[in-house]
C-alpha cells in the first residue's frame, strides 16, 4: 500500500505524456498540436518533480509551460492557418 500511490502516479503521468506526444505528432491541426505541446511541457514539469529534479521542473515551468507557448502561438498567428472560429450557428 505504501508504494502503490507513487507507482500509480508515475505510470499515469508517463502514459499520459506518451499519449500527448503521439497526438501532437500525428495531428494535422497546427493549433491543436501547439496546445498539446504546451500541455506536454506542463506535465513534463510535473514528471521532473517525480524524477527528483526540481531545478529542471522550474526551468520547464518557466520556459516550457510559459514562454514557448506564447512564442508558438504567435508563430501560428503569423502563419495565418485557415482559422475556423468554430461552428457558427
Amino acid at each position, binding site marked *: 500500500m505504501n508504494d502503490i500511490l507513487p507507482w500509480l502516479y508515475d505510470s499515469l503521468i508517463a502514459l499520459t505524456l506518451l499519449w*500527448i506526444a503521439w497526438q501532437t505528432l500525428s495531428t494535422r491541426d497546427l493549433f491543436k498540436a501547439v496546445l498539446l505541446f504546451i500541455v506536454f511541457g506542463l506535465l513534463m514539469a510535473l514528471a521532473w518533480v517525480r524524477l527528483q529534479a526540481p531545478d529542471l521542473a522550474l526551468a520547464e515551468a518557466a520556459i516550457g509551460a510559459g514562454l514557448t507557448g506564447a512564442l508558438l502561438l504567435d508563430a501560428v498567428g503569423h502563419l495565418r492557418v485557415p482559422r475556423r472560429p468554430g461552428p457558427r450557428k
Partner: protein
Amino acid sequence: MEKLYLALAVFLMLNVAAGLLRILRGPTAADRMLAAQLFGTTGVAILLLLAEAQAVPALRDVALVFALLAALATVAFVKRVWYRKPEDIP
C-alpha cells in the same frame, strides 16, 4: 496525511487525462485553450501537494512560476491567434 496528498495528486492527474479529450475534440479553438488553462491550475495544485508529500519546499517556487506565467499562453492566443481581422468586421 502525506498519503492523502499523494492520493489527491493521483486524482488530479486523472482529471487532467480526462480533460485532454476536450483538447482533442474542440470544437472551437477557445475550448482547447480553456482546457490548457485548466491544466495550468491543476498543475499548481499538484505541485503544492507534492511539495508537502515529498517534503521538497522548492516545489512551491515551481508552483509560483506556474501561476505567474499561467495567463501568458491565453493572452497570446487571444491577441495573436483568435483575434478578429479588420476585414471580417461587417
